[in-house]
């Protein structure tokens, strides 16, 4: 931060100018040239297409072989004992041929079937020169009386049958191919890998990364455990262990700290309450004590401080309202004043900042909209204007960014998406592209999700990726509440089954 040290603006100007020049002439063209999709991806897609074609061919051949078997059965059942066995052998030999040949043969067969009109007498009378494949039909028809054979209704039926066979064949052929390609396009959520990753992170307490992050371990617990619950694997952790550790993080003031022995802050208090809600153990808390801690942090203008040191941010307003709502003590604060403060942070573009006049940012918007939603004051939001700003966060790759001109990041797929859902404008973005973006950010080998494709993973982005997919109704995931950021069944349990 040379701005803080150097006083001479000329020096600052020069270094800025240099840096800008370097960026513009060197880094930007480099980045542009690297932006083409990697050859590995195109190669794998090509291989996949070839494999798909082979599978389709095999499937078609299998269908035809089954039909052949049926024909043979009919011949066997229907034919007279005097008929020469050569037809049998012929059909058998048909089956023994290589797939491509029999495929070719069967196409000619189907073609010949349709080419020959059932009304022409030659179809039925020409017994010696007819191919054995048609014999089954003749033999079958022989069972019926001659008059029936020549009935127009039967001929009509035959004609339509041929049409149906041809049509269904035409339809079935491309279907496996397209579904296969779609499957490759969308990718898949590697749920088991993510579960393993989260559990490994929880256990790994001694690496430098986890040691340096230990002051926010309670937040990490919330991210990891909520992800596990969405994936339906919350039982993979030891509930008793987690809960006893959380209770040790509580400070005598009632608030919770990030880890044992640290100072309390509302950020960790909310995470603690949320994790206890996941396990349905909110009642082991002294709700009055915790809520008093939060109530004590409300300021005169309705805003909330994060802790006793007084920093104000709309994030803390959201935390206070959400936490007290879960504890069912929302009446203890001045809700109207709190709403008034949040509304004062509204900007001209419809978004919200961290303080009045602060720049609109997706994270802050989520906090403000969520707080207003819980407090029942969403009418203060200009939904069209905000929806416009939010849907402009979607970039070409399908991901969402947090502010104009920024790179997309998976965590915004939660904050922007949940805000859009709360103001009912989610149809203004392309959901499929967003799903694809999130799935591309996965680490398919080791599990976990990163902020952008091919970056390093962490629990934070894993949670937001999975939560975003849940909001997008990805199959196999529990639905999540956009305002409380907890699974819907947990929220229902709090409000509808308890007193």
């Amino acid at each position, binding site marked *: 931060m040379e701005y*803080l040290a150097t006083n001479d603006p000329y020096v600052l100007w020069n270094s800025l100018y240099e840096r800008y020049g370097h960026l513009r002439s060197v880094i930007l063209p480099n980045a542009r040239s690297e932006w083409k999709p990697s050859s590995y991806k195109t190669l794998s897609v090509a291989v996949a297409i070839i494999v798909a074609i082979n599978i389709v061919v095999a499937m078609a051949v299998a269908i035809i072989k089954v039909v052949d078997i049926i024909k043979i059965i009919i011949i066997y059942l229907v034919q007279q004992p005097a008929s020469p066995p050569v037809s049998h052998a012929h059909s058998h030999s048909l089956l023994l041929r290589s797939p491509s040949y029999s495929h070719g043969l069967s196409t000619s067969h189907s073609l010949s079937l349709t080419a020959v009109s059932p009304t022409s007498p030659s179809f039925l009378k020409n017994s010696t020169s007819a191919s054995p494949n048609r014999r089954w039909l003749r033999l079958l028809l022989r069972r019926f009386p001659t008059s029936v054979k020549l009935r127009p209704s039967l001929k009509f039926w035959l004609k339509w049958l041929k049409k149906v066979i041809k049509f269904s064949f035409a339809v079935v052929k491309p279907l496996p191919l397209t579904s296969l390609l779609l499957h490759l396009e969308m990718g898949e959520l590697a749920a088991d890998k993510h579960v393993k990753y989260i559990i490994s992170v929880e256990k790994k307490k001694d690496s430098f990364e986890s040691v340096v992050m230990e002051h926010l371990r309670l937040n990490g617990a919330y991210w990891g455990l909520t992800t596990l619950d969405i994936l339906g694997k919350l039982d993979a952790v030891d509930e008793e262990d987690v809960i006893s550790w959380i209770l040790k993080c509580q400070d005598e003031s009632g608030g919770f700290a990030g880890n044992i022995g640290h100072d309390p802050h509302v950020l960790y208090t909310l995470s603690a309450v949320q994790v206890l809600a996941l396990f349905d153990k909110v009642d082991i808390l002294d709700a009055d004590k915790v809520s008093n801690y939060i109530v004590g942090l409300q300021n005169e203008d309705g805003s909330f401080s994060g802790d006793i040191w007084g920093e104000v941010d709309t994030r803390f307003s959201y935390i206070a309202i959400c936490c007290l709502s879960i504890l069912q003590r929302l009446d203890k604060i001045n809700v109207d004043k709190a709403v008034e403060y949040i509304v004062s942070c509204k900007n001209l573009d419809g978004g919200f900042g961290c303080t009045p006049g602060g720049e609109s940012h997706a994270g802050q918007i989520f906090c403000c909209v969520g707080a207003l939603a819980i407090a029942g004051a969403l009418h203060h939001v200009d939904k069209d204007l905000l929806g416009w700003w939010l849907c402009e966060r979607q970039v070409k790759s399908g991901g969402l960014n947090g502010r104009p001109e920024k790179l997309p990041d998976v965590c915004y797929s939660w904050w922007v998406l949940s805000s859009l859902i709360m103001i009912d404008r989610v149809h203004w973005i*392309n959901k499929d592209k967003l799903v694809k973006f999130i799935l591309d950010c996965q680490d398919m080998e080791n599990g976990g999700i990163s902020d952008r494709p091919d970056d390093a993973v962490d629990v934070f982005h894993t949670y937001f990726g999975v939560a975003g997919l849940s909001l997008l109704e990805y199959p196999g995931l529990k639905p999540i509440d956009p305002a409380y950021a907890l699974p819907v069944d947990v929220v229902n349990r709090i409000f509808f089954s308890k007193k």
Partner: protein
Amino acid sequence: MSTRENSYTEAEALNLLAQLERILDLDPLIDEVGFIHPSQFATLKEEIVYKAAKHAFISALRQYKTPGNFSGKSQDDTLAIEVMIHSKALLLLSCDFATAWNSRKLIVSNKRLLPILMDELHLSALVLSYSPKSEQAWSHRRWVINMIARNCSTLQWIIERESELVEKIAEVLDELKKSRNWSGLHVADNSCFHYRRRLMLRNLEGFCYTQDNNSSGYFVETYQIWKEELDWNESLIKQYVGREALWLHRRFLSMYLIKHMATHLLAVSCQSKPKASVDIDIDSLMDHELCLVHSCSTTIADANFEDFQAQAIHSAAYMLWLTKQIPEYQGIDIQEKLRAGVGDVTRMLKRSCPDRSSLWDYLVGYHSEP
């Protein structure tokens, strides 16, 4: 214990001498409590160092906090110094360790002296030099500045008290001018344009206060500033093709200019003859905007360059914004022109930006309501 303290003070002294842009290498001191520079994470003893630092810090803090040790001021001071030293070491290793920052706040708030507060600024600057996104460091800085403002506020107090409204506005104008060059080089930085918007709004507020006396002259000046900003924005738009932040800034500018200036205009022109010959015709303004939009959107054909495509999309969205923001405007011909343009614009937007087709549909539907 004393040797450890010595090593810390040594390190501290070294640190204080280090320049903000180049951080010196420090020798790893005692084997268990070395002071490893953050960029030398290649060495594998970080966990041990961190744990030792944390342990030292917590024990020092606990000693400081226990109320029994009030046997003399010197004792209290040495404990405080220990806490400061250990917290400094800890913070250089783990800059988001909130408890360490809080302990420093606690000690500093007991002795509110300017040099100590400046030290805090120095440390937070050091931390921010290698991790500029550290939220705790920024928060600490804000707190320190608040403390300075509250307690050692003589200088700033004087400045604030002495400035009149006009001077305050002049400061805003100065700031606008100063930051303009920087903004011109950082056109993709939305925050800098947000800052400019705030300055412009402050300017407008100032204008509102002085509306009663000598309004028309002042109004002309304010109008000039806004018009200048619009023109500068236009030149940037043409120069830097396809920058979203510029178009968003323009939305704000034109909206405010038309909404607020127009109303004041009418009031002023009714009362007295306008002294300066300023062409404040809103119709011509709208015409100008439409021309700009047209010129930008015709370059959509050049599909190779994302910039031009983005430019066209942004200009089209800007046009939709205009139509949505000024529905009640009385000028009928303007509305007709806008409506005529909207059809083409929506078609083009739907083709080039199909993801948001439901948004375009909604906006157009909204506009066509009588």
